[in-house]
């Protein structure tokens, strides 16, 4: 695997990355951007953004057919951030992918900016659906997949959910509908970091066994390490190859991934680091970037 591959539209997208080292570097840079966003805004959801970052990087830089110059191209693959609070993962990913200048991330959560706290589709190029209220994004993704089938288009629809989010009943309404309509153009990813605002998902509202639940809803279920780019690549390929039913990737992740004192601590779900914590986090993330850059 080396060099940019030709997109499905025949056009080589130079931003597309097939090299795992490059993906890791992009994700590391996005993590630092996310930390800066949340620190600057003094609010935002850093824990679940860090856990989802590798998944988003894999999607936008290797899996999805998107063109930053035509963010509304009807033929594009779609992505719905059902866990809509994780904009510190989505916005840096979109910025690095070229949808808008990285500089605009400074607008995050500011009254004089357009980068809303939760994902917003009209002011942030590349965002396919406004989300934030948990459980709703997956339904929109089902609608997009239905439209794709109705129009005979071959685009794929991806949606990322939190493992706390799936406590919402609407998720399972959507799961039934996706199976009914055999939406093999739909791929959901659950960011299974095991933590939600009030504590461990296992304590707040146990949702396991997730594999059996989705299988019982007639979904193709693929467990995957959500921080392993090769495993993610293989899982997305297997999802695309599965016909007649929707696929869900149960991506095991670590909340706060990449920052030692944030990893596995539910307290970092929706808290911004203070200056001291930020410096510590920044140093760790910068060291990782330098390591990947070979410096």
């Amino acid at each position: 695997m080396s060099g940019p591959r030709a997109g499905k539209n025949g056009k080589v997208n130079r931003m597309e990355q097939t090299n795992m080292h490059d993906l890791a570097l992009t994700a590391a840079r996005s993590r630092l951007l996310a930390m800066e966003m949340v620190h600057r805004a003094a609010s935002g959801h850093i824990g679940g953004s860090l856990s989802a970052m590798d998944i988003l990087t894999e999607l936008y830089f290797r899996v999805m057919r998107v063109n930053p110059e035509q963010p509304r191209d009807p033929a594009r693959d779609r992505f719905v951030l059902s866990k809509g609070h994780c904009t510190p993962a989505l916005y840096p990913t979109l910025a690095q992918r070229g949808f808008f200048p990285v500089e605009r991330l400074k607008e995050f959560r500011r009254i004089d900016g357009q980068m809303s706290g939760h994902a917003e589709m009209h002011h942030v190029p590349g965002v396919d659906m406004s989300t934030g209220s948990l459980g709703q994004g997956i339904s929109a993704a089902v609608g997009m997949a239905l439209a794709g089938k109705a129009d005979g288009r071959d685009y794929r629809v991806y949606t990322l959910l939190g493992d706390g989010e799936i406590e919402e009943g609407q998720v399972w309404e959507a799961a039934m509908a996706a199976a009914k309509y055999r939406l093999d153009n739909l791929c959901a990813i659950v960011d299974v970091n095991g933590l939600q605002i009030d504590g461990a998902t296992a304590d707040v509202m146990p949702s396991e066994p997730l594999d059996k639940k989705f299988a019982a809803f007639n979904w193709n279920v693929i467990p995957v390490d959500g921080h392993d780019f090769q495993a993610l690549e293989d899982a997305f390929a297997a999802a695309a190859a599965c016909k007649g039913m929707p696929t869900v990737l149960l991506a095991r992740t670590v909340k706060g991934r990449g920052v030692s004192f944030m990893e596995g601590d539910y307290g970092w779900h929706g808290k911004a680091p203070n200056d001291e914590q930020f410096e510590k986090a920044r140093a760790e993330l910068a060291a990782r970037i330098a390591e990947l850059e070979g410096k």
Partner: protein
Amino acid sequence: MAEKIATRAAYGEALAALAEEYPQLVVLDADLSGSTMTKGFAKAHPERFYNMGIAEANMMGVAAGLATCGKMPFANSFAMFATGRAWEQVRNSIAYPRLNVKVVGSHGGLSVGEDGATHQCIEDYAIMRAIPGMLVVSPCDAPEMRQAVKALLDYDGPAYLRLGRLAVESVTDAIPGYSFHLGQGVALRPGADATVIATGMMVQMALQAAEALAAEGIDVRVLDMHTIKPLDGELVLKAALETGCIVTTEEATTVGGLGSAVAEFLAEHHPVPVVRHGVEDVFGRSGKAQDVLAAYGLTPAGIADKVRHALKLKK
């Protein structure tokens, strides 16, 4: 005798009739297609009809997703569940992103009848009206409904449309040159002493009340306010200036609906007595539709009483 047909029946016919003209029109229902009258469309265009099961929250989100891809979804259930159960989905997945979804609530108001309070949605106008940018449309008869469906297809944005269960007399077809425009009320009867502003099937009752009051020498204007939001302020203001008092009537709670919209508008522009007629902050109950309506005073006589009261306040 004028045609008597339920607005839900006219709605179902209109959807099917307009399907070819609007190839992006798709219809969703939540296991009530026989009642919401989307069945005809489903039969004629099965590939454009989605039965989403008894899952209204998901239905609204799916409709939103379809709209992002250029479809023109009409999402149907009883008013109670389309606007109540799925209120937050309508707000966050449809209205906030300004997506072109029409939320359609059938069996609005007390005239659901026998099913009782759990199914008698009296809050739909209020809770849909509270959402920024949401249109609220409530046609009174079949001809108006047919035009409303077309107007909503031509309108690119979120809207709520209420349908009624009961067969109702057509009245708008008797108005020369009548045509439906979103956001523009219609004067169905001239009058100088008082104005009744009505929506949905209370329009017909308002006309009957005006007829009865005419026998008492009271000259009542009747406005058909098929669009509750945006309110036709110009028409309301003119009525306030020319008749000096207003009665609103709706098959809904008096809290937050048409009456509130009119009272809010006039309080800020030209305060005159405004008397609200509707369901007075109580739940409905089971019974034959006409009996339930009568039990709650939703009758021409009930409207006439409010007009007499408004005239007293005006003095």
